[in-house]
């Protein structure tokens, strides 16, 4: 009955049908990660709901509802919002440059009076939607190799440069890689891709010497030789590795990780929550978590591939790329495979802004799934 009923015109727009089209496996895995986060935050606070675990759980519940709500928003609304959101994000980034609030040596915040805002977070979503919309209107050939590609390239480059200048290397790289991933998924010529890879290999060392700030360079140095300065810049990585390594196969037991309980692990509630989990739950626990992240990524990309409209495909793929990059960068960072760049483990780490950004991304992905049969004309007003 369902198959025939659902194909009836107008049937898909009914709310109960839409809700039934939400990918509940994905929602379940996301909830599992959020719950694991709350559990770890309870542990690192010394078996206490305060100050993090309770907040985390409340926020997660709220943004989970936001995700469900956004899942029901028509893809055409996302499409319509793409450029305006990008424009607002860009204006706010410029505003930060001019009147931003400086905390801990970085100018990332805008003081709105009642709350402070990180415009770079808006840009994470804005870049995904704006690129998806641009490629939606572009032909296969234009996506592959065309002078018009200068437009998406600039769309990526401008926020990347602005964010890097704050300086916030982590977010800047995240935006850059997300944009590049979307360009790649949209069908960028292999020749360009390979040239780009070769170019990075040449430019990266030059970046190291001429562009990076001293503290950023120190982080790279530490990655190459972490034992050089175990109490200074290498301290974070060294302590995180001790935490992970001492967990062993089965872990030291919930609430018994001495590295985090005794504060040897810095930023244990945010960027370094994963080592705590690895310390207390061992290889089995940590590997299971990675597998869940892998499942989330795989399901999300599957959703992207099932969409009937190009905007939905690219938007879902882009949002997934952002999420995957969070996971990979944070994982590599805490295990000593990448420099410390201040990227949290999404949904596991304490922190509302990133959680909101990521969950809006999942709202987008769910929306793409709910509206996967929607055909969007290539270039016309959709609403």
């Amino acid at each position, binding site marked *: 009955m369902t198959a025939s009923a659902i194909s009836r015109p107008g049937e898909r727009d009914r709310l109960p049908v839409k809700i039934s089209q939400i990918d509940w496996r994905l929602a379940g895995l996301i909830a599992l990660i959020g719950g694991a986060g709350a559990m770890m935050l309870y542990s690192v606070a010394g078996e206490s709901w305060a100050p993090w675990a309770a907040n985390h759980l409340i926020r997660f519940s709220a943004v989970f509802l936001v995700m469900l709500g956004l899942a029901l928003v028509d893809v055409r609304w996302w499409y319509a919002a793409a450029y305006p959101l990008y424009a607002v994000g860009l204006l706010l980034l410029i505003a930060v440059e001019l009147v931003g609030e400086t905390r801990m040596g970085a100018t990332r915040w805008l003081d709105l009076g009642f709350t402070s805002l990180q415009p770079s977070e808006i840009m994470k979503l804005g870049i995904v939607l704006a690129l998806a919309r641009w490629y939606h209107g572009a*032909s*296969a050939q234009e*996506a*592959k190799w065309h002078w018009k590609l200068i437009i998406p390239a600039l769309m990526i480059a401008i926020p990347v440069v602005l964010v890097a200048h704050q300086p916030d290397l982590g977010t800047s790289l995240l935006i850059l890689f997300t944009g590049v*991933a979307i360009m*790649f*998924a*949209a*069908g960028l010529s292999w020749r360009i891709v390979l040239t780009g890879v070769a170019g990075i290999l040449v430019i990266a060392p030059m970046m190291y010497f001429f562009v990076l700030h001293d503290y950023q360079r120190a982080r790279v140095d530490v990655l190459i030789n972490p034992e050089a300065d175990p109490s200074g810049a290498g301290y974070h990585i060294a*302590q995180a*590795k*001790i*935490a*992970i*390594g*001492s*967990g*062993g*196969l089965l872990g030291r037991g919930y609430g018994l990780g*001495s*590295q985090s*309980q*005794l*504060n*040897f692990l*810095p930023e244990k509630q945010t960027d370094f929550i994963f080592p705590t989990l*690895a310390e207390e739950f*061992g*290889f089995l626990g*940590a*590997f299971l978590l*990675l597998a869940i*992240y*892998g499942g989330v*990524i*795989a399901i999300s*990309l599957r959703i*992207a*591939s099932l969409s009937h409209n*190009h905007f939905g*495909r*690219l938007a879902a*793929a882009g949002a*997934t*790329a952002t999420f*995957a990059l969070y*996971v*990979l960068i944070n*994982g*590599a960072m805490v*295990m000593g*495979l990448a420099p410390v760049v201040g990227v949290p483990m999404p949904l596991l780490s304490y922190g509302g802004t990133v959680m909101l950004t990521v969950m809006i991304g999942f709202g987008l992905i769910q929306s793409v799934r709910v509206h996967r049969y929607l055909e969007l004309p290539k270039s016309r007003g959709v609403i």
Partner: protein
Amino acid sequence: MSDRPTIYFNEVNERQGSFLRRTFLLGGAALAGLGVLGARLAHLQLIDQRRYASAAVANRFNDRIQVAPRGRITDRSGVMIAGNRPSFSVSVVRDVTQDLDATLDLIARLLPDTAERRRRIIREVNAAPRFVPVPVKTDLSWEEFARVSLFVNELPGVLATMDEVRFYPFGGSFAHVVGYVAKVNERDVETVREEGEEPPAVFYHPGFRIGRIGIERSLDRDLRGTPGYQRVEVDAEGRVRGEDSDGSRTATPGEEVVLTLDADAQNRALEVFGEDSGAAVAMDCRTGDILCMASAPAFDPNLFVSGVPSAVYAAWRDYERNPLLDKAVGGAYAPGSTFKPVTGMAAMQQGADPNRVIVCNGAFYLGRRFGCTGRHGPQDMKNAIKNSCNVYFYTLATEIGPDAIAAVARRMGFGHEYDIGVGSQNVGLVPDREWRRRNPVRGDPNWYPGESPSYGIGQGAVAVNALQLAVYVSRIANARKVVMPRLVKSVGGVERPLQPFEDLGYDFEKMRILQEGMEMVTDAGGTGFRNSQLGLGTMRLAGKTGTAQVINYGARGRGRGGDWASRDHNLFIAYGPIDDPRYAVSIIVQHGGSFGGTVAAPKAREIMRTLILKDPELLARINAPVQPEAPETSQ
């Protein structure tokens, strides 16, 4: 726009097909990335687990060293010479204070004098190991301590504690012989390394002190004890979260050291020296126990415990009477006339008759004129000792030569270093022909007869220290045994075994000649008569005066006046009582000036009186009713 359906669909298919392939690649890349993370996880957690687990334990537990209470040092009757006293102190722990400058500012508000030592404090704090408290100020008054304690909870990394510090109740009296303790420095660490050992961890504890000179140094390992460890669980800020009593060990206090010294005699020695510079050594001439070994002027060893202010140290260092030098063993001086009994014994050993009479006309000629202290006329050996007649001993020395004198000098105790636990001994010099061969004068390795007369009266190259002089007079007093000095009576309750002494090997009759000569010195008409009377009934001392020339006499008049540094050294050796010798004493007064026994002898007498009055046997003799048949008492 003419949209041809086929092209439209192809275009859409092309975009979709490309997207699917690319997304599949992206997904593969993401999963591969996760796979790399998983592999890394396996590497850290499964392969290197052991290494990181032990690193976590090392992080978590902190073995806090507790310095053992240092062993006490007492005199022969248990009077404390070196002990420990409580001290309130304020310390700073580097890794807990977020801002050292701000913390020191706050401390300076409570303890204003710390501001002056600020740079030194910062240097010490930065040099200390992690989580080790560094004292900012020690010996706080109760009010200061209370004031700091009130605020200590608001000052992160500041501790107010009660520690034990080394304490020398007699101040300078024992400064050289007992020595002092001080903070471990680079040289101490190097010394330990040179012995092929690793310096113990306790060396780096700011509360630990190492023995620097004297007994504190030579018995440092016994006195030090074994440090304890308190294994505590700490967090990253170094705050103690709990204690692991299984991993802890309590400190074992250092051993108590009992010396042969007598605190009263030692204090008396410093007292009688007053401002004079020199040394006094007193010994039991039957056991060899050193009862007094003082060097004057002295310094306060308590100042070294927490660090001597540089102005004070400079004053000590620059003072011409050199309080930092241990003159009892560290300074060698010409023995002067106190050496004459050696020459006498050497002559008798060469077959000379002590009753032989040599006429003193006030001078002796051998290439040049050798003057005497007077015109003594005919002298036998006893009288020559009594009158300190130079001519008599010039003659003997010239006849027997340096090697005979050197042999007796060495047998009598000169030219040796004594293993008593006090380092930096200056062994002085006992010259002979062999020495001259190794130390030629302007390329000439021969000993000329013209050098012997001076040698015979203890001048020239011969040099001795006060301890050797005391050993020498002990052997004369003992007359039978090679008395060896001993300073350490027991360590940790274990008595240091007394070695049986060798026989001296000189005929008792010959020794009696020397003794009788020295008895006459302190009797009416002798050079030391006036200043060596004990005033204890019939009990008397025997002695020998000595004056050692420091410079060639010129117009300045026999070295008695003039500036301090050019005056003669004044010496006196004595033993007593003469009928049953028990104590021997040697005094060197550096640049004491004044001929004969006027400066040194009273000092010897006072020390000797102290010793005799503390000796129950001798005291009984003094207090015994006077024997009616004693000729002295019959009118």
